Every structure is written in structure tokens, then in C-alpha cells.
């Protein structure tokens, strides 16, 4: 009997050697279960003499404990280990293609978010415009130099590719009365030879605010907020007189160069300032063309070029990059 129990132990330990996570439960019931040899022995103890009972019982129980312990430690062994698969953590993961929004789109979205947060509505209009909306209503009479064939793409039907997004303002006011607070983003076109600072198309974001009591100071304040939102809170601004046919007074906003903080560098032509946008109070003639009474209402308008803002922000030296798709350029943004 003694020998038999020893054999059971040996068999169990030998069997356990080859145990896997799959068969360990099976083995455990084989060696320790109700129908196992060891259990049979324990169950048959009653038939033995007291002395033998003591001796065999003690041996069998000890063996049982030993086997249990062996199983326990085997189970431990079989527990999966961290990084059992020897994963190389430095190797690249599964590849997901990376897309890129055009840098100008990114800037436009950013600008529009600023305006949306200030309660502006986004308005849009067609890219091909008639003479009235693109020129005449904006105080650009037929003989105005800006209308030269040189600057404008004309269609054979007499319409034009809009030279600015200002016609949207005219279209919007055909359907809406003050208070008006809109921005109009979109593509515009100029018939100019391409060079580092000129392209045939470009984008504009124009703003228009009309109500009673809108002041020139409101324009200045609005543009300062915009400049800081776009170029950083430390941005300083310079508001200076300018000329546009559709605004009076007119103003340009210069922002301190974000690269040199106004000290002067290549980006700002060593002046410390960057021309950011043109603006002004809506010209009374334009208000009249919008069928808005200039004696009762005042308004301001401004326009900025996202290409210019993108060029400033990312130090892009040539606007032609924007219009001639090159992955090596686009992937940078």
C-alpha cells in the first residue's frame, strides 16, 4: 500500500510535468478527483486496522497535499506572463493613413471659429458674380482702375470671377435687415501673373457688422481681438489710415510680427509689423446700395486673407505652394 501511494505520487508528478492549461483540470480530477486512485485509497481506509489506518491515512493525506501543492505551483507556472510574446514596444503599430487639411483650410476654420464664438453668422455667395454685386454696389464705378482687365477675370457673358468676397455682403443685405453680423469666407480670383506673393485664386474672409450705434472704435476693438486670437495674446496691433473705395474712413491693421515679437526680422521685412487686414466703416454709398439708410445705421467691414495668415503663421515663403498640390508641402501641416 505504501508502495502504491508512492507510485501514485510519482505518476501524478510525472503527469504534471506535461500538463498544459488545457488538460490541467482533467489531470487534477484524474489524480485528486472523487474517482482518483488516491481517493479510492482514502475511501477504503475504513477497512484497515487502526494502526494501518493511521499510517496509510497519514501517508495518503500527505501525498494528497503534495500533489495539490504541485498542481498549485504548476498552475502558477502555466499563468501567462507579461510580454510572454516578446512584443517589441519600439516597433510601429498598425498603420492608419494620415490625412491633412490644406493649411489655408486650417487657418480659415480657426478664424471662423473665432468669429462664430463672437456671434457672427457665416454667409456665402457665388464665385461668379455680376458687375453690380462685385463692383458697382461697392462704390467701384465703371471707370474705376480696380476694374481693369488686368485685375479681373471676365467671362464672355460679361460676368466676372469675383475679385473679393464683398459681393456676399450685398447679397446678404438683399435678404436681411440690420442688425447684421456676418463673415463671408470664400475663393476669389485676380487676373495677375503668379509670383511668390500672387496667385490666380486666393481666399478671403470678410466681415460686416451693421446696426444703429456701430462705431469706428468698435471696428478697432473687434480687429484687435481677432489679431490676438490668431497670433497670440501678446500680439500688439497698429491701426492706421488707408484707402478703399467701399469704406470711409478706411483703416489697415498691422500686427506685431509673431516671429520676432516686433524686433524686426526677415518675415516682417525688418519693420516689426505685418499688414494683417484692411477695413473701414461701410461707405454711405454702399449702405444706400444695400438699401440701408446711412443716416440711421452705421457699420464696419473688414477683409483678411487666410493665405496671408497661413504664410505668416507657418513662415511659408511663396503662395504658389497653396495652389500647386505637392504632398511634400501639404504633409507638413
Amino acid at each position, binding site marked *: 500500500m505504501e508502495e502504491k501511494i508512492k507510485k501514485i505520487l510519482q505518476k501524478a508528478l510525472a503527469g504534471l510535468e506535461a500538463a498544459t492549461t488545457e488538460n490541467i483540470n482533467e489531470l487534477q480530477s484524474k489524480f485528486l478527483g472523487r474517482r482518483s486512485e488516491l481517493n479510492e485509497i482514502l475511501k477504503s481506509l475504513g477497512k484497515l486496522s487502526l494502526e494501518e489506518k493511521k499510517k496509510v491515512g497519514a501517508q495518503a493525506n500527505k501525498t494528497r497535499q503534495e500533489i495539490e501543492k504541485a498542481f498549485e505551483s504548476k498552475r502558477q507556472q502555466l499563468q501567462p506572463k507579461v510580454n510572454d510574446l516578446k512584443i517589441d514596444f519600439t516597433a510601429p503599430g498598425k498603420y492608419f*493613413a494620415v*490625412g491633412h487639411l*490644406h493649411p*489655408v*483650410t486650417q487657418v480659415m476654420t480657426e478664424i*471662423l471659429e473665432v468669429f462664430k464664438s463672437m*456671434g457672427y*453668422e*457665416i454667409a456665402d455667395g*457665388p*464665385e*461668379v458674380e*455680376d458687375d453690380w454685386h462685385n463692383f458697382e454696389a461697392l462704390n467701384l464705378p465703371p*471707370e474705376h*482702375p480696380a476694374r481693369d*482687365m488686368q485685375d479681373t*477675370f471676365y*467671362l*464672355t*457673358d460679361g460676368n466676372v*470671377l469675383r475679385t473679393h468676397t464683398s459681393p456676399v455682403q450685398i447679397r446678404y443685405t438683399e435678404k436681411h435687415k440690420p*442688425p447684421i*453680423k456676418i463673415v463671408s*469666407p470664400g*475663393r476669389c480670383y485676380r487676373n495677375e*501673373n503668379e509670383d511668390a506673393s500672387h496667385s*490666380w485664386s486666393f481666399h478671403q474672409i470678410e466681415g460686416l*457688422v451693421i*446696426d444703429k*450705434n*456701430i*462705431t*469706428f*472704435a*468698435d471696428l*478697432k*476693438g473687434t480687429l*484687435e*481681438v481677432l489679431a490676438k486670437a490668431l497670433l497670440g495674446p501678446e500680439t500688439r496691433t*497698429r*491701426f*492706421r*489710415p*488707408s*484707402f478703399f473705395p467701399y469704406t*470711409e474712413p*478706411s483703416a489697415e491693421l498691422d500686427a506685431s510680427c509673431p516671429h520676432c515679437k516686433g524686433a524686426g526680422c526677415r518675415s516682417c521685412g525688418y519693420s516689426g509689423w505685418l499688414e494683417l487686414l484692411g477695413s473701414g*466703416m461701410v*461707405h*454711405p454709398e454702399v449702405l444706400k446700395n444695400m438699401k440701408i439708410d446711412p443716416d440711421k445705421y*452705421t457699420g464696419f467691414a473688414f477683409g483678411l486673407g487666410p493665405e496671408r495668415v497661413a504664410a505668416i503663421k507657418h513662415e511659408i515663403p511663396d503662395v504658389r505652394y*497653396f*495652389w*500647386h*498640390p*505637392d*504632398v*511634400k508641402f*501639404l*504633409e507638413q501641416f
Partner: protein
Amino acid sequence: MKMPLKWLKEYTNVEMTAKQLAEHLTMVGQEVESLGGTHDFDKVIIGEVLSIEKHPNADKLHLTKVNVGIKDPLQIVCGANNLSIGIRVPVVLVGGRVAGFKIDKANLRGIESFGMICSEKELGLGDNHDGILILDQDSKVGTDFKEYLGSETVIDIKVQPNRPDCMGIWGLAREVAAGKGKLTLPNINVAEDKNEKTLELVEIQVDEPDLCPRYMARIVKGVKIGPSPKWLQDRLKSVGVRPINNVVDISNYVMFETGQPLHFFDFDKIANRGKKAKIIIRRAKKNENLTTLDGVNQKLNPDMLLISDEKNPVAVAGVMGGKNTEVNDATKNILIEAAVFDKTNIRKTSKSLNLRSEAVSRFEKGLPLTLPEISIDRAAQLLSELAGGKATKGTIDVLSKWIWIQHLGLSVAKTNKFLGIDTKNQECIDILRSLEFEADKFDIVNEAKKHLGKPYLYGANYKQNRAEAFDCSYLTDYIYSLINVQIGHTSLGQLHHGWEVKTSDLRAGDILFYKGHIDKSVTNEYHKNDGKGNHTKVLTNKYPEGVGHNGLYIGDGKVIHAAAYEYKEGKWQEKAKSDQKVEIVPVEYFTKNPEFIGVRRYVENLDNLIAVTVPWWREDVKNNADLYEEIARVWGYNNIPSTLPEMRDILPRENLDYKFVNKLRQLLASIGLTEIFTYPFVSKKDIETFGEDIKQAPRVANPLLQEQGYLRTDLIPSMLKALAENQFDHDIIQFFEISQVFHKNRAGTLPKETKNLCVGIKNDAGEKASFDMAKGIFDRIVTEFKIDEGSLPKGIWRIELISPEIMNKYDLKKKAVALVIDLDKLQKAAPKKSVFQPISKYPYVERDISAVFNKNQLAKEILDAIKKCSQLVINAKIIDIYEGKPYDNNQKSVTVRLTLSSFDKTLTDQEIEQTINLCIKRIVTLGGNIRGGKK
């Protein structure tokens, strides 16, 4: 416009450094392009050559010692062959700069050199590079060479198109002086020869008054041609003009002073038939020619304005003079032309002749009609002072247009409200006066009283009578015109134009009317002035009885009027001539008159108005907004506070188009696509390649490139070009562009614009791989916007496989496909909101069925068939399509994943089995061969 500081400072006492001036000009609205000197070099000093030795190591080099006014002479190595001891030469010192190069201490063949002796060319003074520049022997050693040259600091200004007055130094001096100092312009006086009248020497005939509203001419006789004085030459050089001789220099000088381009003809070369020469301003004839001063034979056409004598053209008006009447050394007598030409015509002529000149850049901005009066006398004065000439008596002046004087009424309250500032009345007046505007507090009563006692004259008007005589309505019109309130020229106009006020509410400034004596017949029309010099005719039938008289209420029960008639003994009787004048009468004279009509008012508030008269050279100032700008820029844009608009509440409206496109862009970028922008211009070939009708494509009238003469009707051609440009950069290129495409519309309307998305895929793994990506992107888009693909109308989207032929045309070496979606329509198809769908509380069961089909079998048909076979099929989708071994070339294996469930109970195995069998039946009907049973 170059503004030399020394020249400027002759006219102003403003003490500012060049940098401060540039800053100041920027802040008053002049765009400063550059700030620099006339000469592009630094640290160049006059030196004296003390010794010359041969360079020990180089045959062609010399070793010199040069005295530059400091203690020790400099050792300089020099290669010039015109060196000699004792000459004065320009020397650039170490640390200085010539010809764009910085000069450092150099070692030339073993000998140190401390500077450089310069040639004319190196200094940018001429083309001579044969040797060094040798200066006058009396030039002082140690003098800064710039000082020696009379070099000036120059601010270059980009003059705004509305400011022709700033195309002259005088105008710029006004800008600088405004609010900062005093302005002193030279006195102009012409010593005329009393014995010879200009009129007897020449006749001016303007055939085209619209193109030449003013032409003035003077003759200066006996000029002696010679060099100009140095100061004049220096000034011309400082604005970039080469001095020629005293006479030519004066014409340029006066242009730079005043902004008025002048032309000097050699008077003796003008055809002179009989006693008098004749200048004719006319359009060119067809095929007429003129050789201009630059020696070019210009071909002219009738769109161009010419100055001609009785035989030949002598100048292209406002653009350039003719060679035939050019001033030269033999010239004795000068005809000065000072004119105003139509700006548009000048611009067009200049453009079509491709001929720019200083004159054109001024005329094309539009010159004020008064300017020639000033400039022609200034030129005559200088011709006599500097060229010994003498002007004949009188100026010929052909003026065909009324010189408009712009009055404006400025309310300080409105100015403050508009600008958001707080100026006082007097501050506004001071600012305007500093810009040489006339500005005075407007008091309508005082203004009216000024004219008391002036004679009555029926039909008096501004052109003839100014403020010397009035009739009743001209008096009131005149007074109101001082604040640019246009009330009408006649009593009828004034009665019709104002708004009615009760006699009990009378206020100073109101106008009272009675029928009175009507000089001519009753009329129903009058002309209304728009305040800019234009009139419109107005008809009214409101006053059939007519209206004959009015007067201005001045308060205290008194009226001022100009009257010729009075009501006596029941009828209108003419007063004695001496009593026909501007006078005060009691208000009852009107109100108690049996023919009293009523009272009219024109301005809400006449208090605190400033009557402004715009100076003649500021034609850009036409309305109050223009005055606001003048005040703001002198007040300083910097001093304007920064506020945000206080508006009535508006509900911000979301732009759904923008939202849709923005979301789409984000989606596409997030799944790996890169956004591109391309120009919308394409060729006929581009359009026709993709089967579009060229007749539908809007055509560009003036394309930059002939092969880009149409607006695109499809985004694909530009996409293919972009893919081709980038095809070798990566194995997969995925681009997208969102842009408008254009199609012609009904005549008289704008082209139809449609917003399209074009996705272009180039995948080196092959066309099928590219297609799968394009289709997957489409699937992703419709899923994103919860669009049921099946419900999309035809033609909203397509995937284009690119044929080898087209690939060839677009230089594509790799297979590409394009996906095109009409976004306007796609957006419409997208549900506005998602609606909750009931969810079964019983388990969902998934089963896959694989079957082998003929390759022609459409996936959509398989899914449609399966979905319809039982209500228990909640969803069916294709999860795999396999082609290849072990199947035939015309076979494919399709695996469909079914989702089954019921809203009523948990499905039993039997029910599931039944449903699957139904599906299998359908598949078999479609010709499918079930593979390996089911899972």
C-alpha cells in the same frame, strides 16, 4: 512718390527725424514704402592721394597712402590706372558699403588694405568703371561724400489713388504740417510783359471738353537754355530725375512741387499760319502717328486725345510730348501747357501705348480743375527767374466745367458717435483748419444776417452772383448749401423737398412760403442737386397753384427774405428798385398773408453744426464720412478707443452648408486623405475628355493662359494633374478637393455653381485596390451622414476609372481612380436628424453564408434578395469577396453576414435554421453555389 526731407522742410517747420516722419506719415494714412537715401552707399569720405607705390607682389596693383582727414593716412591697395598724387577721390572706409558690398579690412597679395577708392560705377553715380572717380581739386578732404553730392534722405510714399494732391511735395508738406506745425509755400508772382498779349500769339481750341475740361496756356519768351542751378539739379536728382537743362528741369520741378504735370513746347516749332499759332485738343485720327520724346513712333487711334497744331500732332495729351516740338539748346520761346485731362482716358491711352510717365501717374488719379492756375504761374515765374524768360500778358484758359466747391455740415455729436471718441467742437474746427479746410461754427441766423441789405436779383445764382445778390429762393438755397443741405433752387423745389411744420412750432432755420407774385408761368418741375454737382429733375403736381416766394425764419418772430414784390391793397406790386433787397420782416408778413402756404424744415437739428468748405485740392472729400476720416487721422487712429459692438440681440444662425462641408473635410482628413486646392481654369480638351459638353462650360474672356480658357465643369481634370504631379512621391496618394464646378445657365443669369467633392486615389497596388479605397471612402461618407445609399438619386456620385488613353493625356504612369460627389445634392439627402429605432430585447444572432457566384453577379442584388427573404433578417452585409484559386477566372466567393433577431422572443435553433435556409434558397436562385455549408 519720393519725398526728399530737405525739400519738404523748406515748406514746414515740423522738426522730426526721418524715422519719426515716416512713422507720422504712416499714421496719417500715407503708405511709406521705404526710407532711405538717394545714394546707396555708406561711409564714403573724400580723400587725398598722398603717395603711390608699386605693389611688391602684383604688377597691376598699386599701394597708396590716402589722407581722409584723420591723423594717420590709410594704406589702400588700388588697381586703377588713373591714379596720381594729390588728387581728391571718394574712399569707402572699412565698415562702409558700396554697390551692395560691405567693405572689410582686406589682404591683397600679402599687403593689407584699409578701404577702397571708388569708381563712378561702384558708387552708383554712372556707368564709368575705367578708373576711380576723380573729384574737383577744391573738394574738402574728410567731407562725407553724401554731403558733397547733396545727398538727401528720401521717404518713398505709395500715394493712394484718391490723393493726387500728394503727388507733389507741397501736398505732402500739407499732410506733414497738419496738426504738427506751420506750412509756408512759396509766393507765386509772374512778371508779365505788358506789351505782348498771349491771346494775340496763340489760340486754343478744345474739341473734346469732356476729355479736357481745362486747358491753360502761357507763353514765355526769350529763355536762355543752360544748366540749372545746383540746388535745382540736386532736388531733381533726389526724386530720381536726371537734370537736362534749366527749362526742362523747371517743368519737372514744378510737377514735383505742385503735382501738376506740365508740358513745355518750343513755341517756334508750332505751326504758325499767319499771325497766330493754334493749339487744338482733339481725338487722334485713324492711323495718325507721332514720334514721342522717347523716340518711339506711336501709332494713334481715335480713342486717344491729342494736342495738335494746325498741321501735326505735337503731343499725346497727358502722356508724352512729341519730338517735333521738343525744347532744345536753340529754344527761345516756350508755350507752357497746364491742363486737366480725363483720368480714365489717360489711363487707357497710356495702357494701350504701353507708355508710363510721371505725367500719367498724376493725370490718371484725376487732377483738380484749379491746379493748373497755380502751376502755370509757378512755371512762368521760374522760367523768368532761372532761365531769363519773360511771360507775355495773360493766360489763355479754356474751362468747360463748373469748378465745384464742396461744402459740408459737420455735426460734432455725430462725429463722436460715429468714431466712438469724444472731441469738442473747437478741436474739430482746429483739425480741419490745420488741413486748410475752412471750418466755422454754423449759425443760420448770423449767416442770414450777413446778407441783409444785399440787392434782390431775379434769377441770381452762385455762378454769376456768388453771395452778392439774391432772389428769395437763392438766398435760402445758398445758406443751406453752406452745410451741404440741398433744399432745391426754386421755391417749388424747397416747398416740395422739406417736411411740413406748424406755424406754432416755428424754429430758426425754417422756411415760410406764400404764393405771391409768380414771375413766369406756374411750373410742376424743379431740379434737385445731389451735393456733388449733379442735378436730377423732379416733377410734382402737389402745388398746382404754384409758389412764388419764401423767407427764412430767424426766431423772435422775424423772417429774413429777399423780395421784389409786396402785397399792397390786395395785390402784388413791385417795390421800388432801392427797396428790392435782403431784409427783415415780421413773421406775420408771411403767416398773415392771404396766400400763405406753410412752413418747411430740412434739418432735424441745426445746433452745433460746423460749416466746412473743402479746399480745392481735396476732391476726395465729398461727404461727412470723409470728414470723419480727416478728423480721425489727425486725431490719431492710435487715440481711438477699442470697444466691441453693442448690438441688439441676434440669434446666431448656423450655416448648414458650411457645417456640412467642414464635417466632411474633417472626416476625409481623419481617414487619411490630403486636401488640395487647384485653380478652376481648364482647357477645352480637359472638358471634352470626360464627355462634358463644351457649350455648357463658361468661357473666360481674358485667360492668363490660352489653354486655360474655361471654367471647370468637373473637378477630375485638375485632380488627375495633381495626382500626376505627385505620383512618384508615395505608393498611395489620396487627395481630395472640395470646390465649385460651373455650368452655363439661362442667358442673363449667373452660371450654375455646384459644390463638388473629388477624391483622387493612386495606389500602386493596382486599379482594384484604388477602386476599393474610393468606394470605401464613399461608404464611409454616406455612413457618416446617415444617408441610405439606396435612396440617393442617380447621378449624385460616380467613381471614374481612368482609361490608359486618358492616363497618357495627363501623364499618369500609375493607375488612378476618382470619386466625384455632388455635395449640394448629397447634403439634401442627409437626414436632418437621427430618429430612435426600437431595439429588440431578445438576443441577436449572427450567421455567415459563403457562396460562389459568377463574377458578373452584383453585390447589391445579393443583399437585396437576402434582406427581403424574412422579417427576422435585421441586417445583411458583405464581409468578404474573394477571387482567385481555387475558383475559376469568372467566379468569386462572397461571404454575407446576417444578423437575425425577433422583437417577440428568443429565436430557436430551428427558426434560425429555417431563415438561413430561406436565404440560401434566394442565393441559389441568383445562381450562387453555397460553399462549405454555414457556420
